[in-house]
């Protein structure tokens, strides 16, 4: 979809067309309005040629290496190691800024990043050709309005395993694995972070500097994230609450862009 830098003509056109069909009966007016939207969609595809594609790439890493799930054990220190089995999180409401000036906001911006699906790590953004930016903002998680909006499709579909079943709400961030540091069943740790009801909101807003470029690369170094946790005591968070909020803050703080 095109950026919503509304040109005056877009708006004028719409008004004009609505006036023209004012006299028709309601049923037809509905159809006509749809037709206009249909035409606008056509018009906007041609418009989007003035847009350019930017790649927004998320890189989960461990000690500067791309993260590999399952099979691989990473050293935490001399004696302890860790293996990851699941890393999934929602990125939403992506926008680009030139200093504090908004230059691009993605429509319907909800993305499930899943470390096991390489394709999900790269998000193509279609931004206006002329837009200059030096800052990216996005949310780690799903906003409260979307959380109460009923069944939603695609990345927000409950088959993605990122929706709690016994109590409504999206899981914003899911990390699972095992480490000998965890004195749990099968040495497992599980972090299912979410919660949209006050005072347990677990959504985190992230702002990062970026270079004006055709690609934006954002790292999520799991080694640094784990260094902020003590897996021997914190190894299972499965419900909304203060623990989830605290760990969500720690996770959000580790997202790093390629510019210092």
């Amino acid at each position: 979809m095109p950026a919503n830098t509304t040109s005056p003509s877009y708006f004028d056109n719409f008004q004009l067309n609505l006036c023209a069909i004012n006299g028709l009966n309601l049923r037809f007016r509905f159809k006509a309005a749809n037709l206009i939207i249909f035409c606008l969609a056509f018009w906007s595809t041609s418009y989007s040629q003035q847009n350019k594609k930017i790649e927004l790439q998320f890189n989960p890493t461990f000690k500067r290496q791309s993260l590999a799930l399952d099979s691989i054990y990473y050293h935490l220190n001399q004696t302890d190691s860790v293996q990851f089995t699941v890393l999934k999180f929602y990125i939403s409401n992506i926008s680009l800024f030139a200093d504090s000036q908004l230059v691009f906001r993605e429509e319907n911006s909800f993305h499930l990043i899943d470390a096991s699906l390489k394709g999900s790590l790269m998000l193509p953004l279609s931004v206006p050709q002329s837009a200059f930016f030096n800052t990216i903002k996005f949310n780690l998680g799903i906003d409260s309005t979307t959380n109460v909006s009923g069944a939603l499709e695609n990345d927000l579909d409950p088959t993605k395993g990122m929706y709690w079943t016994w109590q409504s709400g999206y899981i914003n961030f899911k990390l699972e694995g095992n480490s000998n540091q965890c004195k749990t069943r099968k040495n497992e740790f599980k972090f299912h972070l979410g919660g949209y009801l006050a005072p347990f909101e677990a959504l985190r807003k992230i702002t990062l500097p970026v270079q004006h470029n055709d690609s934006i690369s954002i790292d999520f170094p799991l080694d640094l994230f784990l260094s902020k946790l003590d897996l021997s005591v914190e190894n299972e968070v499965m419900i909304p609450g203060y623990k989830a909020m605290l760990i969500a803050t720690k996770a959000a703080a580790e997202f790093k862009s390629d510019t210092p």
Partner: protein
Amino acid sequence: MKKKTSIIAFILLVITFGFRVNHTPEFPTPKGWPLPQYDFRKNPLDSKKIELGRMLFYDPILSRDSSISCTSCHSQYSAFTHVDHALSHGIDGKIGTRNSPALMNLAWGKSFMWDGAINHLDMQALAPISNTLEMDDNIKNVVFKLQRSAIYSTLFYTAFGVKKIQGAHVLKSLSQFMLTLVSSNSKYDKMKQGAIKFTEAEHRGYLLFQNHCSSCHKEPLFSNYQFENNGLHLDDSLLDIGRMRVTQHAVDSLKFKVPTLRNIEFTSPYMHDGRFQTLNQVLNHYIKGIMPSSTLSGILKNGINLSPNEKADVVAFLLTLSDKEFVFNPQFSYPKSSFQKNLKQAD
């Protein structure tokens, strides 16, 4: 030139709308009722989706071993509750932790479950599907099973226009069927419309009810949809703290969602754990069984004072809330003909 454009426009119109014959049944908001809470714009009613939802509701395909359907715990003749079971029975005969509530007038619900843990009707079905004591499956596998079925993949295609079924489609069709479960044809409703008159006893019971009960069981839906502690003592074996499980806030301890009293004649046993068998027992609770606690509703601090005659009158009134048309409505029953028709087509 002008003619040509209008022809193209006409063709476009036909392409975009011609195929979609609109079956949009109006949602019946009974006269004098508040507007529904459900946002129909996000899931407009459609007869195909309603019928699909009805089939899903009655089909054990939603459970791990195809043994349990929604109707196992929500059967029509008991206003869609689990008749005679205090705590619901699920897969492998496992016993749940709560009494299954009657299902009706769900379009007006603000939250679902006894503690309001579910924030939207669409998301309700995920809970029983995934609960290991209930259907013990998961929505991903349910979608897989439905997609694999020639019958269901066709039905989803005709209802939603999709080849690839998503969880949201399953949930939205279940919602559509459940939204049609409107009960508004009781003797009480007919009295309100002026079509019939209450007996003396029913009328006295109605006045007592308005005095003592309707602040929580608010007309016309007979619930204010709030969470209240109505003074039940805590069951030691269940230790159900109610709303506090969701909010983690002590002020919500032992509070449960005020249930509707419509069709109360058919929905025994009563309360979140099904502890009472009869309306008489329920009234005895309100008269002399109230358990004091810090979160007890102020209205019930001193119990409700009813003489034996008054008690009988209140019961007479409660029985006017029975809606036989609802309980026997063929549109809500097992969709035998839909299952048969589709089986035939699949052959």
